């Protein structure tokens, strides 16, 4: 490779704040042409934000960007794409009803005179691109909807290849690939590198990073920790850096005695649809206990709690409440058994955004604000006002629409909805995501009060520190398998993260089972 006069990409001091959160704080990222660079960090470390900024989907609040020495300030993904930067996102955006060829060349359809589609060119160019990602055998006129995730991922990459990119960002591309397809993808990355493209690679699979990358940048809590050549670090070292050595002192949480006797909730051999890994998930939850469910994004935390609640189908497994088996087929069965679930996406699953706060608070307990099918609006208003006071919801009145509230107050409304049911088991999926610091602390206090009142709580969070501060016990999921359990005295960020990575670090042998 010839030496370039400038780095392909030079990001200096990049900062990005969201309301109540600092996503990135003075991050540097330098890519050289013809190199593969790894971007590593825990969930929420700032990788996604950095990629969005690179790809023009977000704009930084601070810092400078240079592309081959020229100032670079994309306003839209299209700007980035024109500048030669392509991002292959984790969530694929494909036109399912259209053919592979049409998806591949969507950005730049080959045309003849009068804007007529040049079908022959479409087909031949699509075939070339497919060959580059090892899909020679795939007919370009296949409809995308008929293909599996792995094929789609490769097609998305082929699509990025069509644009003659100078910089290619691959965000978790191997998450859905089999070992064989992963090897194929790594080969493509090497090929791109040899062609002089600067490649950014994000993966939870550390062994892949070590196999293919030249250097790595570690982020933690939105900060740049360090950039080193791959040869000067090790998987253990990387995990340590992602976690950080100095674990914050735990909060004043009084360690509650792990209640003995019959568990409030017991789950045996749970398997959810599409679960990876072997065996089922077992967990127990005692009254008065806050248990954390930790794991990487995609490790099956959300699927597990949704299956317990009956929001999604359970493939196998038994659920016991206070020692008695309960048959949970749908949310109403779980509610009947005193189990509530605060879902991770409050806007899509928790709130009725364009209805009043009062209606949202009463949504799961309409029986208590009605008699013989008729609403008792005074009662509903009274209950909503009281919930507003108890949870310190900032609102102009209970008739205000949920849409108009801030994230923290919206989350409090969803909590208020479930509290009206007086749950004995409360499961919370990312209860403080997108919630400002003040409301976050209030929600934590509320959960602790509930535990003190004898409610059993199961909390899913991508923020390990949150779980360490809040929980009595932690369960760690790794790739759909329960990798371990840690009691509060033994909380150690490094050890927990190692468990979370456990299944991803296993050799490809075990992967063959699911690939087959």
């Amino acid at each position, binding site marked *: 490779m010839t030496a370039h006069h400038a780095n392909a990409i030079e990001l200096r001091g990049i900062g990005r704040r969201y309301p109540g959160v600092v996503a990135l704080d003075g991050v540097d990222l330098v890519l050289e042409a013809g190199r593969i660079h790894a971007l590593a960090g825990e969930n929420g470390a700032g990788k996604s934000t950095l990629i969005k900024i690179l790809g023009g989907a977000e704009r930084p609040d601070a810092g400078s960007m240079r592309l081959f020495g020229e100032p670079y300030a994309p306003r839209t993904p299209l700007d980035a794409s024109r500048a030669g930067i392509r991002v292959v996102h984790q969530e694929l955006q494909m036109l399912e009803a259209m053919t592979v060829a049409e998806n591949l060349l969507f950005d730049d359809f080959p045309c003849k005179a009068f804007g007529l589609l040049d079908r022959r060119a479409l087909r031949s160019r699509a075939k070339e691109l497919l060959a580059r990602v090892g899909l020679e055998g795939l007919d370009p006129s296949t409809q995308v909807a008929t293909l599996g995730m792995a094929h789609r991922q490769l097609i998305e990459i082929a699509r990025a290849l069509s644009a003659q990119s100078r910089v290619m960002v691959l965000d978790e591309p191997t998450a859905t690939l089999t070992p064989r397809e992963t090897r194929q993808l790594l080969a493509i990355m090497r090929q791109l590198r040899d062609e002089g493209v600067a490649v950014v690679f994000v993966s939870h699979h550390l062994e892949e990073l070590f196999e293919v990358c030249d250097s790595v940048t570690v982020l933690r809590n939105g900060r740049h920790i360090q950039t080193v050549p791959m040869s000067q670090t090790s998987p253990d070292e990387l995990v340590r850096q992602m976690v950080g050595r100095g674990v914050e002192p735990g909060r004043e949480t009084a360690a509650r005695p792990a209640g003995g006797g019959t568990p409030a909730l017991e789950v045996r051999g749970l398997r959810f649809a599409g679960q990876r890994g072997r065996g089922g998930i077992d967990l127990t939850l005692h009254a008065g206990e806050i248990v954390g469910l930790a794991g990487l994004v995609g490790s099956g935390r959300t699927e597990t709690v949704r299956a317990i609640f009956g929001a999604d189908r359970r493939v196998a497994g038994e659920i016991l409440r206070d020692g008695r088996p309960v048959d949970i087929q749908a*949310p109403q069965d779980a509610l009947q058994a005193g189990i509530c679930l605060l879902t991770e996406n409050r806007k899509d699953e928790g709130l009725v*955004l364009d209805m009043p706060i009062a209606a949202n608070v009463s949504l799961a307990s*309409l029986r208590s604000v*009605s008699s013989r*099918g008729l609403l008792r609006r005074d009662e509903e208003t009274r209950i909503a006002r009281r919930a507003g006071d108890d949870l310190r919801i*900032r609102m102009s009145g209970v008739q205000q629409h949920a849409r*108009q509230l801030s994230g923290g107050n919206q989350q409090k409304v969803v909590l208020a909805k479930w509290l009206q049911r007086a749950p004995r088991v409360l499961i919370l999926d990312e209860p403080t995501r997108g919630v400002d610091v003040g409301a976050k602390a209030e929600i934590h206090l509320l959960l602790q009060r509930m535990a003190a009142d004898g409610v059993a709580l199961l909390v899913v969070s991508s923020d390990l520190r949150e779980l360490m501060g809040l929980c009595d016990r932690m369960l760690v999921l790794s790739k759909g398998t329960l990798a371990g359990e840690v009691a509060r005295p033994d909380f150690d960020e490094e050890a927990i993260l190692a468990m979370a990575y456990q299944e991803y670090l296993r050799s490809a042998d075990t992967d063959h089972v699911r690939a087959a």
Partner: protein
Amino acid sequence: MQTPTMSEPLESAAPLPGHWRRGSTLVLREAGIGIALLVLVAVFAALSPIFLTASNITNIFTQISINIILAVGMTFVILIGGIDLSVGSVMALCAVVAGTALKVEGLSEPAAIGLAALASVGVGALCGLANGAISAAWSIPSFIVTLGMLNVARGAALQWTQARTIYEFPDAFNEFGTATFAGIPALFLVALLLVAIGWFVLNRTVFGRLVYAIGNNEEAVRLAGHPVKAIKVAAFVIAGVAVGIGAVVYMARLTIASPIVGIGFELNAIAAVIIGGTSLSGGRGSIIGKLLGACIIGVLANGLILIGMSDFLRQMVTGAVIILAVILDVVRARLTRRTA
């Protein structure tokens, strides 16, 4: 990183009290339709000397009754995010079944009328049940299911009567079609009663609350433990019942039952609902708005005839008004979102 504190940033204070704003947009929305209606009335009154006469007003009331009744049912279906295209055809099927019942020999007049009303409502409810159950069971868009029902019901009505019209109903029945109280047609009073019931159900019952909530966020309602599919089916059954009542009202007015009545009525009902400010994507809109929407369509139809506009042109104007109403709806939704 953070200290536990009960204080909170002040970011969440809404610029305007929400309930006030919501109240005002609701009032504004309805007021807007009301004003449009008044403007229409004023224009036609100026253009035609007959428009504001007592007999023409009675006439308009009679004409719009049927559309109001159908629109009340349609409101439930559109609120849950569905649509019912089978309304006109189902009405014809209800009418011919009821017409047959009216002609059953050996029954006293009141018994025959009672049987006919029951039969009409029953057939309507069954068709609604089929629409709702099929679309819920297989998650098929109601647009498609009811399009099929449109053909099934029309065919059934034609088959039932061998395409003949049924007439010579009991006198008491026919008199109901022309009866008035204080100059207001009995048919219109039936329509107003249904509007009142519809309003009550939507605003004062748990079921009505869930209908609105499903239109806004079906998943949140499901996760709150409510039987979403059953409620959706019920909305279609209500639409069917409204069609059954509408069929009886229409027969009383025409004094016949024909298998070819009601063609295009579904579009009028949908138009009334949309002009009345109900979002086609569900979850938003009031039943009072529907009443005004139906009035606008009725006044427009009547007034345009009086000023001598041709059938064909009238159709074009009505269609244009519906498109205009939808545009206004979209613009309004965009404005509300921006201020929120």
